[in-house]
C-alpha cells in the first residue's frame, strides 16, 4: 500500500494484513462458516478457484469492522484484497469471476489458481 503509517492502530493492522497476505478477505464469519450470504459467495468463488487465502472475521472486532470501511472508502463487507490492492466487494468479485476476469487477474498477480 502507498498509505503512510498513521497513528490509527486499526488502520496499521489492516495495512500490515493486506501487505503480508497475497489474498485476504475481510468477511463476516470465517471461510468455513460464513455468517452472511455475501461473504459466503466470495469465499465460495475463491474456493472454487482453488485460491489460498486468509479470511478475517470482522464480526470479532467492532473497530475492525468500522476501520475496514474507512480503509478503502467502501461501506460494505466482504472486501477482497490481492497483493495489497482492494479488488472489490461481492458484486465486483462475482462479476469478475463470471467473466473470467478474476482468474486472469489472479494469474497476472502471480496467485496460484487451480486449473
Amino acid at each position, binding site marked *: 500500500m502507498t498509505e503512510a503509517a498513521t497513528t490509527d492502530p486499526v488502520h496499521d493492522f489492516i495495512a500490515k494484513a493486506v501487505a503480508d497476505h497475497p489474498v485476504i478477505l475481510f468477511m463476516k464469519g470465517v471461510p468455513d462458516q460464513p455468517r452472511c450470504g455475501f461473504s459466503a459467495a466470495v469465499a465460495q468463488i475463491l474456493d472454487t478457484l482453488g485460491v489460498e487465502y486468509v479470511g478475517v472475521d470482522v464480526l470479532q472486532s467492532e473497530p475492525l469492522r468500522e476501520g475496514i470501511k474507512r480503509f478503502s472508502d467502501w461501506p460494505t463487507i466482504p472486501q477482497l484484497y490481492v497483493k495489497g490492492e482492494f479488488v472489490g*466487494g461481492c458484486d465486483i468479485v462475482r462479476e469478475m469471476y463470471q467473466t473470467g476476469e478474476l482468474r486472469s487477474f489472479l494469474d497476472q498477480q502471480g496467485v496460484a489458481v487451480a486449473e
Partner: protein
Amino acid sequence: MPMPIEALEAALREGFPDARIEVDDLAGDGDHYRARIVSSAFKGLPRVKQHQLVYAALKGRMGGELHALALETSAPA
C-alpha cells in the same frame, strides 16, 4: 432498518441525473435491492470507482440504513 424504494431511487436520480436507473426490491422487504445504473459518469472508471460514486450519492446510508444493494454499473455504449 429498511429504506423505501422511492427514497433509494430519488437519491440515485439526484446523484446521477443523466442515468438510466432500474431498482428492484429483491426480497420484497425494503432491505435487499439491486440497482442497475447506466451513466456517462462511469465512463473510463474501474468498477471499484464506479461503485464508490454510487455509495457517495447515497451519502453514508449504504451499510447503515441500507443493508444490501447489489450494483451493476456501466457507461452508455
